[in-house]
């Protein structure tokens, strides 16, 4: 059991209320510097208004700095964005579920329109997952920004892990739904094409599922038969299978970010202990990366110069050879050799 003490606390707080209009953070009235309040004596706290006036006069320059930390940093929007996209995905996949259920029922009327909607929805959802992945990746890039403080870096990383886990859960769900639909769809198709289907596919393939070769085979099958309905179905199935593969890619990438459960990495105390070391390590890495980058730039320049020198040297030797060989009577195998020499020499002149 637990005991809620909020009521008692509030009543204590009310009994201490010294300033009636004590709205949370009266910034305009009281521009407290972060440390000013920490240094308050009890007396100061009892005369907040007086104190506030003093401070406002004394430390006006801090105003802008204080306002900033009230707003979350812009990169935290990613959290909202991804959550919103996930919500969208959720709604759409619910819609898709309904359509799937309708579509799976056998019918005679033309349903190409419905199929188009399903196709669109599926594509949109896959697109959304791509967006999520891109956002999360972006967040990862942000960690390497120089102006982030260590706490922000930590937050950033943790947010990334959290979002990756959420997207992962959602995409797994979606993939499971898709593959279930795929199975049903194939079941239907088999009913429609009892002869051709069972001829092409062995019975137990149904359990194994949908292989690459099957995509090809079904494409061939669709081409061979004139039945447009079958062709449509085949296209549909191929598309879904491809969609699943596409999602699998996203999945694999995100999986590297998710915490392995049951390991020491998932321990709160371990993470706190290692937080500071991690930040330090990250800093070292960053510096090293910058160093490498500088070095590669230097290397590039050196390489370029070396190449230029080499090229010039080659040109020079060829030219000397050319002159010495051209002064006697021009021989017959000259044309192939002259052509390459003239063009570089023209280049070198332009250089």
């Amino acid at each position, binding site marked *: *059991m*637990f*005991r*809620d*003490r*909020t*009521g*008692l*606390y*509030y*009543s*204590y*707080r009310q*009994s*201490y209320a010294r300033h009636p209009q004590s709205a*949370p953070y009266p910034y305009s009235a009281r521009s407290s*510097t*972060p*440390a000013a309040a*920490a*240094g*308050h004596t009890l007396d100061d*706290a009892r005369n907040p208004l007086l104190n506030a006036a003093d401070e406002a006069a004394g430390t006006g320059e801090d105003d802008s700095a204080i306002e900033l*930390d*009230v*707003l*979350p940093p812009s990169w935290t929007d990613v*959290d909202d964005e991804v*959550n*919103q996209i996930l919500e969208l995905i959720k709604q759409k996949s619910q819609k898709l579920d309904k359509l799937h259920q309708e579509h799976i029922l056998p019918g005679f009327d033309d349903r190409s329109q419905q199929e188009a909607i399903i196709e669109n929805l599926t594509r949109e959802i896959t697109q959304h997952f791509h967006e999520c992945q891109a956002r999360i990746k972006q967040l990862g890039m942000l960690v390497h920004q120089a102006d982030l*403080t260590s*706490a922000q870096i930590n*937050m950033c990383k*943790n947010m990334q*892990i*959290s979002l990756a886990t*959420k997207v*992962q859960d959602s995409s*797994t769900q979606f*993939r499971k739904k898709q593959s279930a639909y795929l199975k049903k769809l194939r079941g239907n198709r088999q009913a429609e094409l009892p002869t051709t289907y069972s001829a092409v596919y062995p019975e137990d393939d149904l359990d194994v*599922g*949908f*292989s*690459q070769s*099957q995509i090809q085979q079904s494409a061939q099958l669709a081409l061979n038969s004139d039945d447009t309905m079958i062709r449509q179905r085949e296209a549909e199935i191929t598309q879904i299978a491809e969609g699943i*593969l596409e999602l*699998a890619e996203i*999945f694999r990438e995100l999986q590297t970010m998710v*915490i*392995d459960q*049951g*390991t*020491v*990495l*998932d321990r*709160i105390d*371990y*993470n*706190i202990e290692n*937080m500071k070391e991690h930040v330090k390590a990250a800093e070292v890495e960053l510096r090293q990366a910058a160093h490498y980058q500088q070095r590669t730039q230097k290397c590039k320049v050196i390489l370029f110069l070396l190449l230029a020198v080499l090229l010039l040297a080659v040109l020079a030797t060829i030219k000397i050879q050319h002159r010495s060989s051209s002064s006697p009577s021009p021989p017959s195998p000259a044309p192939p050799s002259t052509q390459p020499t003239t063009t570089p020499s023209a280049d070198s002149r332009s250089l």
Partner: protein
Amino acid sequence: MSTTEGCGLDWLISAHSSSTMDLFKAAQTYVDKLLDTKASAHEVSGVYDSSGGKMKILLLDAETTSILSMITTQSLLLKNEVYLIEYATSLFAATFISTATNNVHTSRLDNPNRERMRHLKCVVFVRPTTESVQIIVDELRDPKYGEYELYFSNVIKKSALERMAEADDYEVVKAVVELFADYLVINKDLFGLNLSAPEQCIFGDAPESWAPGPFMRSVEAITSVLLTLKKKPIIRYEANSPLAKSLAIETLYNIQQDPKLFDFRQMDTPPVLLILDRKNDPVTPLLTPWTYQAMVHAYLGIKNGRVDLSGVPDVRPDMKEIVLAADQDPFYNDSMFMNFGDLGASIKEYVDKYQARTRSNMNIESIADMKRFVEDYPEFRKLSGNVTKHVTLVSELSRRVNTDNLLEISELEQSLACNDNHAHDLKQVRLFLSHNLPDETKIRLVALYALRYERGEQPSQLPSLLDQLNRANVSPTKLLALKTLLRYAGDKERQEDLFKADSIFSRAQSGFKGLQGVENVYTQHVTLLERTLGALVKGRLRENLYPFIEGGGSSRDKAADIVVFFVGGVTYEEAKLVAQINASTPGLRVVVGGTAVHSSKTFMEDMEYASTKWQ
């Protein structure tokens, strides 16, 4: 003020209504409350509300970090939008500097530990100590975060509440809640503290006195467990133990301090809090254990659910440190009380299962295989990590069984503990002392011999054995610890004849049926706790040895809900016993705890520490 006192009962909200005494489940309700998971769950399943999903920072102190780590995980925190977790204590050091320099601007520079981020919601979970209250007071004077929720792991004093309310000028505190989780949940029926040498040994300047800090900590832990389980017990203690008695008195005082808090529905048979002293059973921690959890603790050491494997030869880098948590690891949950032989069979089964899964994952030929693989992958990965973990552990244990001659040693230990055969035992002990064994093992054997034959028909040969140890260059501090052990838990100090009932009768005496079906030579010993609990359950626990605390009520009924607390440390052997009793006896619910969870190593370390204090 009186009005708020009047509606005190309204604040008593029952966190869980189940009648089982499962500490993990109870802890889960605390985590839910702390993280407000219901709200987040709603956000996930229902309509997304952008204003509701506010990012959180969690402030902990050193002890609540351990407490929370035992009952929840980092990923669960992240899932609930807790993106930062920090120690609250770093602020304490910083404010100390600021008051010392008394310069506003330097103090700000000196205080880079936590940045101001008022877009965050701050969830504070700390023990209600004077230091943490001071930290919160300072924090509220100058809030770094947008709003605050204060959770305390135990009863918070009204005066402290007033102090915080006074400092809360900005009215940033939105909730103040007491979550009674002031102890480490180790198993679902085992709780503990880390009160052991060298940092926090329970012993004061004499064997009869507590160290003040660990004493209060123990009282708070017991109070908190009782509140978690919603029990207002009658309290019994071991008559010969001043430590147990003072703990019982203080606990009763605490309960009587806040009668409204302990105003639970009366049950037919009142719950019992039984406070025992380790000195009445010094044998159990000295014996070589043969069950999984106990063995891991004995040879590798379990600290807050973490096991350090960096000393194990040829260990994989990702297995240098592992986590053992029964609530997250089904294999561990099933096998933690298995003896070593059964464990071998069980781990083999586990590996076979894993191999079957690997094989099906290996032949990825079609898209369908790939798809299935990706779908199963997280689960597979989890399984693979878990299999590696347990295989590493078990192979290390079996290596130790061989290198340390554990089978022979254990046989002798059991013979010492259970049979009365002085001549044979003495010969064996002498023989082992001449072998090349670790000092700890030699000390343990001599300690068992000394405890067993302290008062026998034949005169004890302890002096000559000590002499032999001396000649074998066993360190003097360890010899001193051995003497301290005899002073602490020798025959004169114990109230019951520990070796009275030899193995033939002891099982029949305890009255618990269905415990440990097959006996083998390595597990003959029966803990004193089994006898004590057996008597308590039947209502036959003798009142002169286990008196009721005065003014705390008494009952001659058979007890059904029992909380046992070991002053001086519980062992995993006893935890196993309690788990087995809970599983095999319907209607009986026992929870056991102690100032620490001892292995023979940590037990002797405590003795070593005590020998420096008790001169």
